[in-house]
């Protein structure tokens, strides 16, 4: 075939220009993005249209006006006061408080237990290491929901009736209605006592900060943690005696068929906390272990060469470096606890998902605002935590030269 000379450029040239334009990375990228945006908008419009049609057909509405309406159902366990006649907005608040309560309690317990198990895995004793390892493997490889339900149906529901309750310690009672513990009651002089406690804590923190600064400036150490603990323990004790018992304890007592007085949490709360903290403690244990193992051996040898005492090696060499590895995944575990607390619905504990996305949604039929509010809450928690995390990561990042 012979190639014709480019005599009539108009059709060929135009096609050439178009194909050249399509091969230009910038033009292509703009084109792709415009097409994607159009597709997303089209899908959104289609969904909105369908939703509006469906809502009209079912006589439902998507507004937020139902929030002031009385919810009209009771909630078994509330952290803030709530009555059946309260508004839906109040239900939302009750759900959030219950979710946060579960999350905070489970986080504290899981951290304590997780550190313990993580250190046990690093133990130079083979049996302790094996026990910790089997604990981690068994708990980590079974679903959390299964554990929650097993603890609820298999343990806390089968506890004896209130009459034959198990008394763990004076005032701490466990039975199939829940867990009862003494409640603190403010007496005369309580506010002064609270002020003293608060002051002691603030002073101890201040002392720690001052000791750190002095250590960095002069190299002289001050046992700030020991002193701080002593202040936080003994000053309130002294105040307690001097002010003549400003706090008394309201003990749970058996009256008729049930216990009254004191604080109480339902069995579902106990099951949730035990399962959540056991499950999370495994992941925390692994984080602690890998964090400590990530500190290179040379650091330990260097500390040994400087003849640092062994508790200094741990506190001033190993921990600061391990923390850099430990903190980010630890925080993401804490976020997971908050998200996993939503499994409460399976055993009927009234957390946010249970009272809001289930009961309120079924009662009011306002699917869209309720789902949006629930998701907004979880997004807000997770975004604020990751914002804090970013700041922390910037601070502890290695200063590379």
């Amino acid at each position, binding site marked *: 075939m012979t190639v014709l000379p480019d005599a009539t450029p108009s059709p060929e040239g135009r096609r050439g220009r178009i194909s050249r334009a399509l091969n230009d990375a910038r033009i292509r990228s703009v084109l792709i993005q415009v097409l994607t945006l159009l597709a997303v908008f089209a899908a959104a419009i289609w969904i909105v249209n369908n939703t509006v049609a469906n809502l009209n057909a079912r006589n439902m509405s998507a507004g937020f006006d139902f929030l002031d309406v009385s919810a009209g159902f009771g909630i078994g366990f509330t952290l803030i006061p709530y009555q059946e006649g309260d508004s839906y907005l109040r239900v939302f608040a009750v759900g959030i408080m219950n979710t946060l309560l579960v999350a905070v309690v489970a986080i504290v317990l899981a951290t304590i237990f997780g550190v313990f198990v993580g250190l046990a895995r690093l133990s130079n004793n083979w049996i302790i290491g094996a026990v910790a390892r089997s604990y981690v493997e068994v708990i980590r490889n079974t679903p959390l929901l299964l554990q929650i*339900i097993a603890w609820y149906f298999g343990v806390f529901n089968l506890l004896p009736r209130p009459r034959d309750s198990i008394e763990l310690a004076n005032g701490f009672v466990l039975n199939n209605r829940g867990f009862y513990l003494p409640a603190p009651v403010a007496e005369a002089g309580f506010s002064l006592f609270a002020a003293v406690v608060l002051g002691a804590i603030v002073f101890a923190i201040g002392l720690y900060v001052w000791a750190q600064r002095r250590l960095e400036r002069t190299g002289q150490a001050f046992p700030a943690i020991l002193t701080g603990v002593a202040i936080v323990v003994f000053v309130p004790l002294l105040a307690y005696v001097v002010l003549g018992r400003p706090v008394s304890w309201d003990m749970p007592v058996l009256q008729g068929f049930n216990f009254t007085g004191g604080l109480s949490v339902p069995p579902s709360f106990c099951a949730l906390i035990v399962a959540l903290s056991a499950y999370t403690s495994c992941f925390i244990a692994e984080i602690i272990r890998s964090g400590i193992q990530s500190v290179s051996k040379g650091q330990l040898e260097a500390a040994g060469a400087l003849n640092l005492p062994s508790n200094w090696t741990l506190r001033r060499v190993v921990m600061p470096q391990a923390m850099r590895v430990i903190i980010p995944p630890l925080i993401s575990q804490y976020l997971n606890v908050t998200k996993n607390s939503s499994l409460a619905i399976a055993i009927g504990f009234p957390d946010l998902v249970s009272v809001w996305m289930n009961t309120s949604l079924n009662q009011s039929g306002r699917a869209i605002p309720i*789902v949006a509010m629930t998701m907004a809450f979880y997004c807000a928690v997770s975004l604020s935590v990751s914002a804090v995390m970013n700041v922390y990561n910037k601070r502890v990042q290695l200063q590379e030269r």
Partner: protein
Amino acid sequence: MAQQTQVFVPQPDRPPPPDTSGPLAWIRRNLFRDIPNTLMTFVGAYIIFTVVTAIVNWALIDAVWQAETRRECLDAVGRAGACWPGVAAWFENLIYGLYPKDQVWRINLGFLALVVWMVPLWLPKVASKIAIGLSAVMLYPFLASYFFLGGEKGIIWTALIAAGLAGLIWVWATALTEMRTGKPVGTWLVARLGQADTDEILQRRIKQGAALALFAMAFLMVTQISFEEVRTRFWGGLFLTLVISGIGITFSLPAGILLALGRRSKMPVISTLCTLFIELFRSVPLITILFMFNTMLPLFMPAGTEVNQLVRAIVAVCLFAAAYMAEVIRGGLQAIPSGQYEAAKSLGMNYWQTTSQVVLPQALKIMIPTIVGNFIGLFKDTTLVSIIGLFDLMNMARAVGEDTDWLGLFIEPFFVVTLIYFVFCFAMSSYSINLEKKLAAGRDRT
């Protein structure tokens, strides 16, 4: 000059150190190093002894093996021993759900087909493992869904099932020829016909013809079989758990790769959309997504569309898993040094060539443990579908205690189900550790 020679007299040998190797030394080092260590050994041994004896006593020694109802068990041993007849009576339901008993062989055959499909991946001489793996992901689902679902099949549905069947036959044909002669089945066929030296076009024609013939044969076979329909509401137990997690795993990897690439894209619209999707799905609990799809998917669809509840759950699980997988893959992508991109560019590779041949293979390889960890998480998370009313393995176990004959029998079924979950998850994690070691063999030079 008389010189007195001093004879070198060595010092007497020092006693050898106490044995540093062998079982005795190991015991001394790991169990009785010092007093606290010895104490810990006793504490640990006590814990192991208590737990093991408690479990053995409950599950084996004090257990009841023959009974008609839970009452009989309670009368015999109370709560001290397990009541296994209840679990045995429900065992078939735990595995297959309420699937019709006379059709259960279809489930077994479906999973057997998957095993048969995957076996060549572990045969050392088989070369086209990637093609086999891809075919399992792309074609097996059609075959399996017909096995499980059954019912009427139109012409397109028949063609898809036939593609699945043809894929299975091709996998084994190519595995056999590769083990025998080292050539994939197409090349082998060409050589058998004595056309190995002819031009490529003819060879390709022969291969295409053979593939077409295979497909036609499979199509004919598929038209000959027909299964009765089993509605998804009869699906349950371990079978349902495996279906949901299998679909979630199969979907989440490619979708996660696309999302991760999208998030790292230089096009602002694409990366914003991907980031929004990933962050939204990652920051809310799976249960809220399941609830959302359960209540809102029917609202989003055109009026009158019925969305099967299983489909709603699967859509929710897939999107959730994809968002998590995207972040894992992105971690892998970030670990690839920019020199790799520059090298690919200098060879004249375009974006997709660079991504698929240089970046992704390395990124996926270093993320294998995390990816498998994610699969395990997904497998465990499928228990959440029980909350929206599907009877997966866990919900089936809970249902045992609500049966009038076995009222309150919770611990035993939970124990069995826990074992099943543990075996699956532990096998997956052990396999990933094994794979990681194998892949790291060439990398670590220590």
